[in-house]
């Protein structure tokens, strides 16, 4: 079923585009972080789709399976291993970002990006 793979590509592209859109246009910082995490999910989904084989089997060699049949029918397991790492990295990045947001909220009292993360170079330049 090649159309499954095509649909997955569209889904991951849609996730990336949603993420990029939210990066520019959403003002609330938590929502912006949620949106950005969708980019990572889109990339993961794309890499899993590379390893997927339509009509194949899970790449685990069960006892009693014919080896050559398995080699031609199993999905490609290398991308799955990569995605495993990348999911964990994405989660830890998200956690660090949210922790920084919590600290900054105490200082500013708002979640608006245009207030919290505005230009700081001018204010500190010359304070009497």
């Amino acid at each position, binding site marked *: 079923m090649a159309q499954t793979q095509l649909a997955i590509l569209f889904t991951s592209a849609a996730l990336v585009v949603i993420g990029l859109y939210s990066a520019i246009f959403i003002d609330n910082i938590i929502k912006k972080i949620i949106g950005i995490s969708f980019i990572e999910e889109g990339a993961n989904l794309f890499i899993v789709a590379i390893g997927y084989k339509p009509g194949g089997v899970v790449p685990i060699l069960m006892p009693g399976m014919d080896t050559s049949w398995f080699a031609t029918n199993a999905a490609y397991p290398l991308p799955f291993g990569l995605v495993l790492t990348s999911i964990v990295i994405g989660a830890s990045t998200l956690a660090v970002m949210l922790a920084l947001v919590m600290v900054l909220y105490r200082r500013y009292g708002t979640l608006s*990006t245009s207030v919290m*993360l*505005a*230009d700081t*170079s*001018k204010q500190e*330049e*010359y304070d009497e």
Partner: protein
Amino acid sequence: MKLYDQIFNVVKQFKKLFSPGPVTNADVSGSITAEIFIIVSLVLAALLLRHVSVLLAGLVTLILAVVLISNIPLIPKFKIEQEDSLEKMLFYAVITLAIIVTFIYWGGNLV
């Protein structure tokens, strides 16, 4: 005399660049250096187009020189566009991504 007045106005406008706070002559001379440096280096970089087409290089260089010189002071404009706010940084990052991907996807084989 017109150009002289224009340059004099440029120096006056540098005052805003360093506000709040005093403007020392070292800062102003640095800004004027930056102004001249940016014009010359951009025009020089445009000359690199001659490896693609000589005519294009001449045209782009002339247009760039006229546009840049008639728009001085450039440095305050450059600095406003490259300040530390996240919105501007994200905007330029995404725009660059779009340009790179578009350029490579459709023009990658032409170069």
